């Protein structure tokens, strides 16, 4: 027996065969199930994975960018602070150096003053000593000269007069 629509025009080749229909149904549903399991499922999962991956990567990149930005800002702040520190240190050093210079100059000046003073004192002392020595010598020489003069030039007559004078003086005082 042919299919029920065998005589229809569109069934010119055998019409609507129930068997074909059942086979088609079974094949198609089977294909649907198998492809769903072995092809579309994994493929769609992969596409979903990629979507997630890309979204994730974008998020991470965004975060890294922000992080980098933040770090850059920190670094530049740090750099600025360091520069200021260095400036301060240099300034301090300059100031200290200036003070030291002044100190050294002062102390050198004081030392020089002191040296000058002590030299002057020494000179004074030496001078005094020399004057003293001169005085002593002059005195000695005076005595010597005096004694020599007295020895040589005191004549008899003068001696007499002198003696008389001493005697007179001595008598008057008593």
């Amino acid at each position, binding site marked *: 027996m042919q299919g029920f629509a065998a005589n229809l025009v569109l069934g010119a080749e055998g019409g609507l065969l129930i068997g*074909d229909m059942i086979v088609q149904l079974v094949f198609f549903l089977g294909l649907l199930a198998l492809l769903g399991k072995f092809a579309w*499922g*994994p493929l769609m999962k992969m596409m979903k994975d990629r979507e997630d991956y890309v979204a994730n990567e974008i998020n991470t990149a965004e975060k890294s960018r922000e992080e980098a930005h933040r770090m850059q800002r920190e670094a530049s702040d740090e750099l600025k602070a360091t520069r200021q520190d260095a400036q301060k240190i240099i300034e301090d050093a300059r100031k200290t150096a200036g003070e030291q210079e002044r100190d050294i100059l002062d102390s050198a000046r004081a030392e020089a003053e002191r040296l000058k003073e002590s030299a002057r004192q020494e000179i004074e002392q030496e001078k005094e000593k020399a004057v003293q020595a001169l005085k002593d010598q002059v005195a000695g020489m005076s005595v010597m000269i005096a004694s020599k003069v007295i020895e040589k030039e005191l004549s008899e007559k003068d001696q007499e007069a002198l003696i008389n004078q001493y005697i007179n003086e001595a008598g008057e005082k008593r």
Partner: protein
Amino acid sequence: MNSLNHEAPIYEDAFGIGWLDFNLSNVLMMFVASLIVFILGVAATRNMKRYPKGFQNFMEWLIDFIKGIIGSNMDWRTGRLFLPLGLTLFAYIFVANMLGVVTNGVVGHTLWWKSPTADPGITLTLATLVVVLSHYYGVKLRGGKEYAKGFVRPLPFLLPFKIIEEFSNTLTLGLRLYGNIYAGEILLSLLVGLATTGFGGFIGAAVPMVAWMGFSTFIGFIQAFIFVMLTMVYMSHKVSEDH
């Protein structure tokens, strides 16, 4: 030729059941088409990489293509459900259409190798499956009450038309595909018949044959696309809230 003097390998009264007849050519071609689709599908999805290459790219394009069809009919949250159906329908119908374009195989006087979609029974089966599925999902996704209300919307007197529409949808969906592919095959076999009449016939047939094969390829693609498109249209009528 297949419409003229070639016969279909019909196997009648299978298992002693009176109404159970098979067209063995159809069975063979359905099997071949299913096998090709299955092998292509599985081959394309082995060694999948996160960075797609070659065949995987093509399959992903196909998925996006079907996604686009579904997306133009319903919102993606519901439509996601029908993606495997759309993909399988498209791949199967396209491959089935192509089988008949590449060649028609005749053994003796029996037509063995042709498009399975050049048979009304097969296309109507697919169409019926689609329409039945649309009713099933209509009930499943929106509930029996909403589903039933869909028949009297927007006006109650449309009920008979709505019911007729379901059958006409099925018929047009199936017969459109069948008609296009069958017509293509008839013309191809006529051209083959012309080509075998002699040298002059061969020369005369060669150019239109190439042209017609190209056109049939185009038709095969378009019909697969239309079938899936209409499937999704009918689905969205049943499952979308605003219809």
